[in-house]
Every structure is written in C-alpha cells, then in structure tokens.
C-alpha cells in the first residue's frame, strides 16, 4: 500500500490494477478487508490512499488518470472540512453562518473534483459518510452536516458515470463511531467497523462492475489545467516566522509526527534536548499556512544553518493537512528569498530516506540538482524559475518570511 505520488516510472509500469481510496479522513484501516474483496472479485490487486488536503491534487492532476488506476473510491465526510478551524474552538462558540458557508464551499469544491474524476474514463464510486464524529458532536453540527451531506449526494447523483454507494449503517454490527480516535487522529470508526465497511463497500463496487460496461477513456491523462486553476483559486499563503518559546510544543509535534513530507523522516526518538537546541538556534522557523477556505495555523517547521555561501536546510516538515496545496514550493521560495537577502548563493537540502518520505525526495528531485543521494542543491538565482517549472500552478502562492526583527516579503 502506498500513498499516491511515490512511484517511479518503472514501478508504475509494473503495477497491477489499483483502486485509489480518496477520503477526507484517515481511512487506511479499511485496506485489508476492502483489498480482499476487490482481489476476489477481480476488480483490483492493490489499493492506494489519498487523504485530507491531497484530494484536489489527485482528482484534478494526472495521478487519477494513470494507467494502473482502475477507479477511485471516494469516502467523504463533510464535517472534516470544518476541522482546521473548529478543532481548537470551544463548544458553543461556533458561528453557524460561517459553518454553512464553509460547507457550501466544500460541496462546490468536491463536485468539481468528482466531475474531473468522472471525466478520466475510470470508475468512480462515491460513499457519503455520515458526520457523526468528534467535530460534529462537540459543536452540535450533526443536523447541519446531514443537510449538506444530502446536498452533496444529490449533486453527485447528477454527474454521469459516478456510482453512489449508500452508507451501510443498518448493516454494521457493534460499535461504529470512535470519537476518541477521531479526535486524536481523524480516524472516525472502530477497527471492526472499518473491517465491515471494507467488505460491504467492496461488494457494492464489484456489483456495479457486473452491471455496467466500462466507461470509455476520454482523457489524455494530463488534466493539469484543472489542477492549476484550482490551485490558483485557492490563494495559498505561507508565512515563515522565527519560533518563540511559546511555540515549543508545536515545533516538537511538527518535527516528530509528519511522515510523508519531511527531510528527516518521522522522529519519534527526538530527545527533548534536541528540540531545546533547535528552539535556541535562532534558525528554526514555523510555517504558517492559510488559503481561501481555511486557516491551518502552524503546519510545518524548517530548521537551517548558514554554511559558507549556502543556507543548509537540516530539517523541513509539513503536516498532512496542508499537502497538495503547493505549500512546499511556497516555503522553498521564502527560503530562497531569505538566502538572496543575505547574499547567499544556494539552498542545500539534506535528505534522509525513511519509511514514508519518498514524496519529499520526489519534490527535491523536481526542483534541485542531486549532488548525492542525500544532498540536493538549489541555486538561489534559478530558484524562482525551477519552482515555476515544477509546480502544477506556477506563482499560485504568496510567501512571507519574518525572521526575528527582520521582515522580508518574497514572491
């Protein structure tokens, strides 16, 4: 099982048929039972997973049209759209008009993504998941979320080529919702519930294949203009700010937890003294992210040193919630601006291969020159053009960099 975007061309050519599971929440627990049913039904050999903010990049980009992709299973729970803003909000403090606006935006975004997916000539299955989780419960938004789930489902029904699979609530035995794992890790259901869901949804998917003839391929597999337009409209803004003592917990979390976009890999073994040293270094910065839809707060961390005429980036991590928005491009452009201000000629990235951080290497390979397996160099003078060339939507972000008392705006 691999998160999308990590395959080499050789690996791609060797992949068996794959269904991509795209979900607004953590859904990997569905893998064993779903894969078993799809394998038995001769639907697919493998499953891939795309989660949270990376949905748009998958749906609108070329990955969804890759030859080995048989189809896409969408598991969407509308309350997840509210999470960035509401996870820290006090119960009873929510502005319902804001919630309605946010949910309507989410419906519109999802419809454009599902429409794009349906145009790829691949199967699309859509499961509207009930918003009975931690966010909806805490803020008493169950009824409102149900309304927008129904709206979303009705809109998806009108998209040709999409199979809607009803949520099998009445078939699920035992405890289904798990508000504890939902609060701690955006995992909405118990393991048993996921096991059952995989079997039931997989069977539903197989039945649709028996009924229908395959959709005709009408996409050349690039699909980049839609993604570029989406990203341009997102208006992503990234701000790098020097850490202050009150940021220690954030820095600690952002160094330890991110798994797919991180130079150093997951650092569960990070010692408190190492975090203290980074905090005191003067060159550790938080990456604050916002876009048109939400403010995600501190969503990444970068630590660098100045070595000769280079900024040496020792660690850089981004949380999963902001992946798929070109935040990494914005952050690197801010660092390049900082280097330029200081009269430095290059950025040097030190990459450590780890279990799941291949997407980080893929990003570095797309923007920088590989000096060795672990060292990537990006000249400051060509940073802007290289970032523009590699990004799906060039210049679709703004980035500012505030280091201590020095402010700098970069574009």
């Amino acid at each position, binding site marked *: 099982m691999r998160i999308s975007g990590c395959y080499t061309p050789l690996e791609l050519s060797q992949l068996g048929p794959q269904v991509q599971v795209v979900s607004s929440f953590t859904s990997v627990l569905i893998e064993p039972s779903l894969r078993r049913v799809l394998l038995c039904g001769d639907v697919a050999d493998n499953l891939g997973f795309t989660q949270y903010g990376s949905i748009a990049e998958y749906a609108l980009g070329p990955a969804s049209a890759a030859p080995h992709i048989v189809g896409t299973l969408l598991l969407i729970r509308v309350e997840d759209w509210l999470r960035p803003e509401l996870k820290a909000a006090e119960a009873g403090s929510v502005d319902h008009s804001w919630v309605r606006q946010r949910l309507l935006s989410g419906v519109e975004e999802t419809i454009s993504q599902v429409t794009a997916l349906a145009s790829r000539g691949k199967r699309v299955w859509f499961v509207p998941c009930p918003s009975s989780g931690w966010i909806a419960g805490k803020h008493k938004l169950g009824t409102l979320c149900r309304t927008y789930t129904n709206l979303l489902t009705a809109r998806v029904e009108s998209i040709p080529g999409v199979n809607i699979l009803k949520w099998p609530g009445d078939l699920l035995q035992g405890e289904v919702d798990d508000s*504890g794992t939902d609060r701690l*890790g955006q*995992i909405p259901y118990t393991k048993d519930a996921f096991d059952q869901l995989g079997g039931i949804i997989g069977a539903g998917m197989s039945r649709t294949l028996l009924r229908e003839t395959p959709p005709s391929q009408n996409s050349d597999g690039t699909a980049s203009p839609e993604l570029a337009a989406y990203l341009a409209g997102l208006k992503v803004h990234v701000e790098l700010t020097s850490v202050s003592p009150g940021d220690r917990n954030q820095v600690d979390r952002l160094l*330890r937890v991110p798994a797919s976009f991180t130079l150093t890999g997951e650092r*569960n*073994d990070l010692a408190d003294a190492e975090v203290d040293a980074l905090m005191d270094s003067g060159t550790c910065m938080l990456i604050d992210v916002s876009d048109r839809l939400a403010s995600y707060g501190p969503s990444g961390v970068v630590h660098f040193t100045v070595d000769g005429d280079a900024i040496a980036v020792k660690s850089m991590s981004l949380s999963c919630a902001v992946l798929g928005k070109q935040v990494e491009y914005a952050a690197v452009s801010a660092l390049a601006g900082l280097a330029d201000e200081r009269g430095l000629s290059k950025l040097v990235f030190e990459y450590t291969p780890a279990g799941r951080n291949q997407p980080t290497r893929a990003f570095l390979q797309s923007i920088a020159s590989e000096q060795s397996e672990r060292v990537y160099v990006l000249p400051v003078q060509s940073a802007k053009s290289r970032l523009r060339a590699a990004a799906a939507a060039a210049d679709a972000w703004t980035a500012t960099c505030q280091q201590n008392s020095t402010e700098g705006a970069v574009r």
Partner: protein
Amino acid sequence: MSLPEVYEAVSPVARQVLAIPEFSSSISMNTTPSWDSLNHVRLLSAVEKKFGIEIDANEAFKLTTAERLVQYVQAALSRESRG
C-alpha cells in the same frame, strides 16, 4: 494508583491494540513495529476509554514510549482523584 499498578492496568489494552505479548518499560514506538502512528491513535483512545480520561491532543504525540504513556495516565488519574 502506583506506577506498577498503572502498568498492570494498561498492559492488556496495549497488548491487544499492538498485538504484542508483553507491555513493559522497554516498549516504545521505535522498538515495536506494530506501534505505528495508526495504532498509536488507537492505543491512546483505548487507554482513554479504559480509564475514563481524556488525553490532551497536544500531548498525544509525545506518548510514544510505554514509560511516558503510563506516567501520563498516572498523573491524569491523580488529577481526577484530587479534583
């Protein structure tokens, strides 16, 4: 509860979630392959249910060793009994 008592209470939960034969102070995310990020969330949630406590989401990422987890639970239970 004393630390050994908390260990004894957490142990069956941890053994079930992580599918390990033994839960002791030597167990950590680094040393236990089944203790991945997914099972970390499931373990913490199961501990919350077992003891009727709520683990602060901002602290959850630090509880990646048996020792830290058990100490956290002990402190949480102490606070509850005083409060």
